[in-house]
Each structure stands twice: as structure tokens, then as C-alpha cells.
């Protein structure tokens, strides 16, 4: 085994034992060992296991020496749990580990919920309101333009009318469509004002929210981080020594 010192305090000295990983897996089947399987009840799909304070696992099962062992299980957002179990020859010991949610996670969830509520109140709702008003405004704008074009067409038809019936009909159309046009453009003005007010509100609340609120984060450190451990993962085995 060859150790290589990488740096001074707070740096990890890591030695990868790739060859050892192969030999350990192979030798485990040959000597007096049994298998243990951890059924860890967590909702994030991630957990770390420290067996006998020396062997660090990210796997849910491994081979161990026969006899009694102790394991500490940790998962982000859960209280570290300790379980004792016994490994028997040529059998698999299943260890069910119930994990309790930590107070930090509960606090984070409450904080995050509050953050999201404020986010919706400050950005989502004003934003969607502005979008809706903007779309409605655009709709009224298009309808007003369309009606305006129709009024001009009716005026042309009126000016071309060479009979009593046509003149009466097109005059009636001019007046009716002009009334509709005026109604639409006043509605457009109203919605334009509402859109502008909503846009201003959205900008104000967004800026205020970004200044006053910071998204909560939850990245708890593993309690096993500072240990000197045998690291076993699906990709190999390594020996981790943390200095400082």
C-alpha cells in the first residue's frame, strides 16, 4: 500500500486501491464471510453507511466478517441512525433502517415553502396577470384594427352608393361598425392601462423579491466526511484519509 500526501491541513490524502477492490470482492467469497443488505427508508435515494467506524459504504449491501457489527447510516435531511446487526456465514442479513427527518430539513422545507409562496406572490401571479392582460390587450387591438378597416370599407361603399337602398344600408353599417370600433378602442385603452400597471407592479415586486429574498439551500455535510475510511462504491474501492 502506498500513500501519497497531497497537501497540508484540510486536504485529503487519498489512495485508490483499485486492485484491492477486485481482490476484496473475490476474497470475500472465499473466506468466512457473510452478506449484509441495508434497506434504508429515505425519499432521496441517497445514503451513506459507516460500518464499525471504519468502512464507508455507498452500496446497500456488502460482504462482512462473521459476527456482530455496528453501522451508522446517514442520508441528507435525516438524523444519523445507528443499528447493530450480526452477519452469518453463507447468508444475507437484511437490516431495515428507519430514518427520521432532521430538524434542519424540516426548517428548510418550511423556509422553502415560504420562499416559494413569496415567489408566486411576487413574480408568478403578477407575471401571469400581466401576460393575460397583455394577450387580452393584443386581442382588443387586433379586433379594433379589423373593425376600423371595415368602417373604412363601409364608408367607401357608402360613397359609391347610387341608390336609396344601398345608401341606407351602408350608412347603417358605417354607424354600427363605427360604434363597435369605438367600443373596442376604449376597451383597448383600458386594458392597455391595466397591462402597463400590471407590468409596473410585476417589475416592482420582482425587484423587491430579488433584493429581499434568497433561495434557501440545503446541503448538509456528511458526518463521515472527516473520517479515515475504506471507501466502497460501485466503481471501486479506495482508502480515504482526511488530515486536519
Amino acid at each position: 500500500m502506498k500513500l501519497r500526501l497531497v497537501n497540508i491541513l484540510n486536504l485529503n490524502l487519498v489512495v485508490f486501491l483499485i486492485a484491492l477492490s477486485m481482490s476484496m470482492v473475490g476474497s470475500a467469497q472465499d473466506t468466512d464471510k457473510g452478506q449484509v443488505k441495508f434497506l434504508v427508508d429515505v425519499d432521496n435515494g441517497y445514503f451513506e453507511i459507516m460500518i464499525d467506524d471504519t468502512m464507508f459504504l455507498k452500496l446497500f449491501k456488502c460482504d462482512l466478517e462473521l459476527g456482530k457489527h455496528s453501522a451508522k447510516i446517514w442520508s441528507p435531511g435525516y438524523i444519523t441512525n445507528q443499528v447493530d446487526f450480526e452477519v452469518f456465514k453463507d447468508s444475507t442479513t437484511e437490516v431495515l433502517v428507519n430514518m427520521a427527518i432532521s430538524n434542519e430539513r424540516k426548517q428548510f422545507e418550511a423556509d422553502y415553502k415560504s420562499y416559494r409562496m413569496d415567489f408566486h406572490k411576487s413574480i408568478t401571479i403578477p407575471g401571469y396577470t400581466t401576460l393575460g392582460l397583455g394577450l387580452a390587450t393584443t386581442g382588443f387591438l387586433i379586433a379594433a384594427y379589423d373593425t376600423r378597416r371595415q368602417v373604412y370599407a363601409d364608408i367607401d361603399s357608402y360613397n359609391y352608393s347610387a341608390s336609396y337602398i344601398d345608401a341606407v344600408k351602408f350608412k347603417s353599417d358605417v354607424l354600427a361598425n363605427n360604434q363597435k370600433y369605438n367600443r373596442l378602442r376604449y376597451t383597448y385603452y383600458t386594458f392597455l392601462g391595466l397591462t402597463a400597471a400590471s407590468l409596473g407592479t410585476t417589475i416592482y415586486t420582482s425587484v423587491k423579491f430579488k433584493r429581499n429574498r434568497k433561495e434557501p439551500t440545503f446541503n448538509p455535510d456528511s458526518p463521515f466526511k472527516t473520517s479515515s475510511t475504506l471507501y466502497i462504491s460501485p466503481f471501486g474501492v479506495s482508502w480515504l484519509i482526511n488530515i486536519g
Partner: protein
Amino acid sequence: MRNLLYILIFLFALPSCLKKIDEVDEADKNIFDPTYDGDIWFEVDTIYLFTDQWNNEKVKFNYHILEERTPLLKPSQINLWIAVNDNNGFFAPAPLSTAGLYGGTFTQLPDGTTSYCVEIGVVTINGGDTLVYNQFTQCKDL
């Protein structure tokens, strides 16, 4: 930020295009419109005495419809009702001339006056009823 500026310019520039349509208020100058609100739409050009082939003295009237008061679509003639000095009126068509104008001529027996007032209205037949509307009167001396 620039996109926001474009949106604001777009939103606030467009209302200027949605102004009141002033032409609607002017859409009452078609002489076929019973709610016509324009000025007199014809002109009596000349009124003069003449002696016909049977040696009878008569008064001759020449008139035309003002070009700007005729519809853009030109019918072959416009039917009119004409009365002189509040006497009984008569129907007369004003044909379209090659110059694109409507006008005509009619004669009356002189009534001893030197001033004649000509009243002309547009005639239409609507649902079996004959309507005379948009009458105006213009007086002229011999």
C-alpha cells in the same frame, strides 16, 4: 431590458393609430342618403325667355348636379322631382353626360315674374312608394 423597452414603445405607440374616424362624420354627403346633411347639391345654371317654333314665349331652365355630390359609382341617370315657384312638380331624369355630369333642361310657361325659384329633390321608388327627398331650392332671376 431593451426588449421591455420595445414592448413599451409598441404598446404606447399603437393607440395613436386607433384614433376616432373623422370620415364617419362626413359620411352623410351622398344625395341618395335620406339623412343627407350637405349643402345644396345642384345648381341652376341659366334661366331665360325664349320663343318656341309655335311662337309661344317660354322660360327655359338649365341645371346640373354638382359633381362632388354625385356618387362615385355613376348610374346612367338620376331621377329627380322638380317644381318651379311652388307650382306642381314633375319627375325628370338627369342623364349622365359624356363629360360625366348629370344635368338637364326643362321649360315652363312664364308666370309674369322675373325671379324663379327651382326646387329639386331626388326620387326613388321604395317598396312601391315613390319617395322624394333631399329637396333644395335655388332662386335665380331672368
